[in-house]
């Protein structure tokens, strides 16, 4: 029940949207998030988009690991 899946918004109609992920397509409510636009990635939990996912930030985090392997003092 704590699970949420990343999905991409493909169509918006009021506070409902069509979101897709790995071939799965479903209607989700976007009532809980502001300023959502087409192609945004969101986390979907029990039929609601609960937050947008910042893909750029996700990749920055990965960069940090790649550069930190030899730098364990960094905090």
């Amino acid at each position, binding site marked *: *029940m*704590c699970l949420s899946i990343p999905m991409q918004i493909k169509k918006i109609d009021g506070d409902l949207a069509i979101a897709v992920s790995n071939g799965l397509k479903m209607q989700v409510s976007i009532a809980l998030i502001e300023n959502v636009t087409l192609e945004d990635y969101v986390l979907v939990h029990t039929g609601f988009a609960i937050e947008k996912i910042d893909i750029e930030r996700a990749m920055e985090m990965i960069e940090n690991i790649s550069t930190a392997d030899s730098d364990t003092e960094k905090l």
Partner: protein
Amino acid sequence: MTKELQTYRNADLAKSLLRQIEKEVSRPLRIMEVCGGHTMAIHKYGINNLLPDDIQLISGPGCPVCVTPVAYMDILLQIAMQPDVIIASYGDLMRVPGNLGNLEAVRAKGADVRLVISPLDALKKAKENPGKKVVFPAIGFETTAPGTAVALLKAREMDVDNFFVLASHRTMPEAMQKLASGKINIDGFIGPGHVSCITGSDVYGFLASKYGIPVVISGFEPIDLLMSLLMILKQARLSKAVVENQYDRAVKPAGNVQAQKIMYSVFESCDAEWRGLGKINGSGLEIRESFGKWNALQHFKTSPVASNEDKRCICGKILTGLKDPGQCPLFGAQCTPEQPVGACMVSHEGTCNAWYRFKFMSNGNNTSTSRQRRKINA
């Protein structure tokens, strides 16, 4: 999953992080993952088997099904047996035991119990069945409660008078405070990722400042969890205690303010009972009086039921990190996911269930409480 997010399952990155973790361990540490989704991911990816012996991962109370009190299940089961009632429930609740059995058992006796994946589906069922009373059992933490609130706001907007919510939502920071102030000696918390999407990361500040416990909010992929562990280990080595946010691609310091507003327009904080943890002040969400018309507790009459819980079940101690499932005499014998005795065996996020599926099933026995170590080739 997007190509970018797939990187969070990359084996080379995992090896790099494990090497850093090996170097970083400064002393034996007990680290609790409070969220059931993390418990599941840790067992699914075998992360617990890859860590140095000095790191002990302990599961916490973050499985909503596991902490749902028996008394709540008894009320729900009594409502389910009343005439013209449809229970529209998440699948996770079907086998949660109460003193009167479980939803699956009352369905076999004729109760109308249907599965939904969203409170809006339950509301839809109410509109489709005007002659019936549709009851939605609303469990879950801050992740789930805003959705229940949206359904109640819609019920009011559309004037649906045959939709009822039996609310048992819980809030996580209060439970973490109870754990932090107790006797279990936690050296670090892996903070709940999806709960924190709503609450934000700032709310956990007191755990670091008052109790001196490092907190790292984590995502759910293997790289997320290994990074979060490394961040906790670094704090421990430097004797620091701060809140860090590994999952900042989705979690903001103040959280999802819109969802918080919606949640608190329908619910207000109350003291609440947790299975295993007892009563925790301010840890529940009750439906505001202005939404009383849709509150199942106000609409249906039920009565308390005598307890027949199996005293040998140690769910309470497991939920608070004091014992693990291998120490329960019923684990894997009388208590299995097919026939759960306690709530921790029911949901996939329950610790006993995760142990059964990923440890017991793969080992073929329940005696292995020590980890199978697989050293990573550097």
